[in-house]
């Protein structure tokens, strides 16, 4: 069996990658992808701990989280499509109509 610490390392690595992307990227789709990576790092943790405990609750949580992520992605991409139609770009720096 793969030791738990490897899962946690994988999850930490993914979380850091996601956070790094979120902080540095300006493209809307890239941001959405980073958010997905963050969510999935959490999912990995949930599933891993659930398998080790053993307690099925964590896997149920992971399923909820995936469904939630799907919904969030749906809404997010819809917004990005509308933004693209309006401005012809999804570079978030250029979308600043309501800014001071």
């Amino acid at each position, binding site marked *: 069996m793969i030791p738990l610490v490897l899962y946690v390392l994988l999850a930490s690595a993914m979380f850091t990658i996601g*956070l790094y992307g*979120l*902080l*540095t990227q*300006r493209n809307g789709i890239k941001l959405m992808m980073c958010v997905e990576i963050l969510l999935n790092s959490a999912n990995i943790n949930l599933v891993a701990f659930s398998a080790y405990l053993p307690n099925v609750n964590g896997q149920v949580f992971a399923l909820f989280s995936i469904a939630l992520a799907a919904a969030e992605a749906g809404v997010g991409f819809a917004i990005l499509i509308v933004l693209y139609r309006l401005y012809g770009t999804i570079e*978030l*720096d250029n979308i*600043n109509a*309501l*800014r*001071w």
Partner: protein
Amino acid sequence: MYQDYAYLIVGLPVLAFVLTIFLGWHLPKGGGFFTVLATFAGFILSFGIFREIYPNDEIVHQSMHWFASFNAGILIDPLAIVMLLMVTFVCTLIHTYALGYMEGDPGMARYFAEAGLFTAAMLGLVFSDNLLQLFIFWELVGLCSYLLIGFWYRKPSAASAAKKAFLVTRVGDVMFLAGIVLLYTNMVKLNLTLPDGAYLLQFQTIYDSLTLIPPDQLTWIAVLLFGGAVGKSGQFPLHVWLPDAMEGPTTVSAMIHAATMVTAGVYLVARMFPLFYAAPNALMVVAYVGAFTALFAATMGLVMFDIKRVLAYSTVSQLGYMMAGLGIGAAMGAFSVGVSMFHLIGHSFFKALLFLCAGSVIHAVGTNDMREMGGVLKHMKWTGLTMLAGSLTLAGFPLTTGFFSKDEIIVTAFEHGAMGFGWLPYIFAILAALLTAIYTFRLWFLVFDGEARSDYHKHESPWIMLGPLVILAIFALFMGMPSQENFYHYVGNNFEHYGVDFEELAVIGGHHVEHGAHAVHEPFIIKILPIIVGVGGILIAALFYSRWKRFDSGMVTSERDPLRHILLKRYYQNEIYTLWFAEKVVYGIALVSNMIDLKIIDGTVNKISAISVGFGGTLRKVQTGVIQNYLTAIVLGLAVLLILIELASMGVAI
């Protein structure tokens, strides 16, 4: 039983005001009958209360908790009940007359609403039981007079007359308020322990504490209160708004000049008479200002050609008599309150009559200018005859009400002089009486006698207007004789209900203590002199202006006569008050104040707000609106926090 409903005397006109202002537009005659009925109901109630309290010489006093240390109260004593009766009675007739006079005016509903409120305010003023409540109604009266004088607000002259009335009376009102504040501070200083139900500024409390307040303070209070009365009652030098108040409908002039508003000032002085009596020199001021006003206004009444302006100056002059009547109380004591109030009541009947007659004439003829009238009697018998009744009364023709009331003031003014308080009030009063008779009959002859001097409309007014005239004429002619002595006694003893000791007050005020009303025996000539000048004045007017004309006014004065010029120019009042005082002095002060307001006061506020805006403008740059920036801050903050917690758990002292 009626006294339990005393509050309705004011309540019903207020209700009429609410009804007419909201529903009047949809009702025939602008809902005017609400106002008429409410005022008439007030008269019935007042009369009922009078019947209840008169036989045993009682007073009605009710009060309810208002706020903090004040109550709202109703006080009906002899002084108040005669005013209540007069105001409700005369106002009922004026409102009835207005049903005919205002017919067809698009603002009828507004007129009756404001007239109802005006009546209510005056009635509330009369039966207040404390000075503060009186002041509130006093201001309400001022507001209503502003609204009514400016009733035809599209006419620039009416709008400016309303503003003038409001501003000039405001000068007096500020003094009145200052007087109240001064009185209040003095009463607070006394640390009175008040009996149950009594409170500061209640008239009873004021009367009780007069002896405790320092006399020099009393004089200041009295003079300030008198300043309020000067403004409201059109005494010199604040009389200038009264003739201009003619810009409103004639019924408004009748209301302002007869029943309400101008009598408020006299009523205030009468109500506070013990205070004036106790204050050294205060009554002297009242007597001299009043007598001077009587003469001053009468001279201007002589030369006016606008029928309403003659009556307006006559009102100012008669109010001067009333003030003088109170002022000579220095010699007569509280008896003078009766004398003055009797003239006030009589005057309100005949002056309302004269104004309503003038309104009837103007209604028919269509002009205010007496030079375009003449011979109106042929076409308007009732108006002419009722106006003759009013004129006879005003001139003090023997056995009319004006004869009893005015002559008593003149005779008491003589006694005032004989007792060594100064002869000027008497001289002014007797001269003014002569002039009164002359200008009154000059008016009557010019309007009703002779030949028509222009092509005016000739028709008598409807009966809804003539009815009140006839009733008022009967009262103006015959009220005086049967009631005079009773009235003097009833109202003159008003202050005995409060246990006011006039002899004690006289010592503070520095008056001689006189026993009995008529301590001096005036010679026979003095007694009949008022009759002589009254009748003589009528004859002089007849010789100059009637069909039996023997003289022409040109024979007395020429066009270049400086005296005539100064009278026609009304003593250059317009030049002094408006052109010099208002436009130079007040405007200059206004400019400076405006500058201070804009640069210093507004400037400070603007500077503070500019600093805030600038600071905010800088600070909002922090809120970039870029999510990543916030996120970075959150992550860094979290990281620092975690490190600190980790260090703390390792035992590192932070």
